[in-house]
């Protein structure tokens, strides 16, 4: 299976704190993406990092990629209650198909 794994499975933090979630995968990749899913909704793309990049920022999001360890992390700074959602990493290989991780459920307590 090319499915990735994420940890932790669930994370609960206070509003204003930072949230870090990690992702691992098994193959060589072209890029790694992070998606967000609110309860009962579809996934929404957050950020993409290419295999030749090590770090990328977008607003309060910071993504790192370590291809030697086949791992990535997503940091959400200064979290808000509205950040409560499930977060998934997805890696893309030579073809266009995305292979998703198992997800991290983030709860931000007001």
């Amino acid at each position, binding site marked *: *299976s*090319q*499915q*990735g794994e*994420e940890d932790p499975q669930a994370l609960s933090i206070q509003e204003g704190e930072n949230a870090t979630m990690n992702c691992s995968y098994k193959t060589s990749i*072209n*890029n790694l*993406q992070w*998606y967000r899913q609110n309860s*009962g*909704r*579809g*996934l*929404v*793309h957050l950020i*993409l990092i290419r295999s030749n990049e090590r770090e990328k920022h977008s607003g309060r999001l910071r993504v790192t990629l370590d291809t030697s360890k086949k791992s990535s992390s997503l940091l959400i700074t200064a979290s808000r209650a509205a950040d409560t959602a499930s977060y*998934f990493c*997805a890696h*893309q290989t030579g073809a*266009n*198909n*995305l*292979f*998703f*991780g*198992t*997800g991290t459920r983030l709860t931000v307590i007001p």
Partner: protein
Amino acid sequence: DAGITQSPRHKVTETGTPVTLRCHQTENHRYMYWYRQDPGHGLRLIHYSYGVKDTDKGEVSDGYSVSRSKTEDFLLTLESATSSQTSVYFCAISEPGQPEAFFGQGTRLTVV
């Protein structure tokens, strides 16, 4: 949700019956995908299509078939539904050279 409509949104069906889920897009994207989402497994790719009448199997294709006769429609058929196919099904679209995928709202299927 990027002009993607999945229908039905909810369905309960009996074991052994055929079921067809529809994904309709208005974005004219060439690539379309069907995923299933189950607790502890994330999203797993069932089938995908790179164009009209160009489809292929994903990781968990057993028991499923697809058809794409028009750019805008991608149909997923469960030939004979089983309880293990109870899941939430998501359709996604993307374009060649643009890695970001856009997702529909999902179809919750229960097989009793």
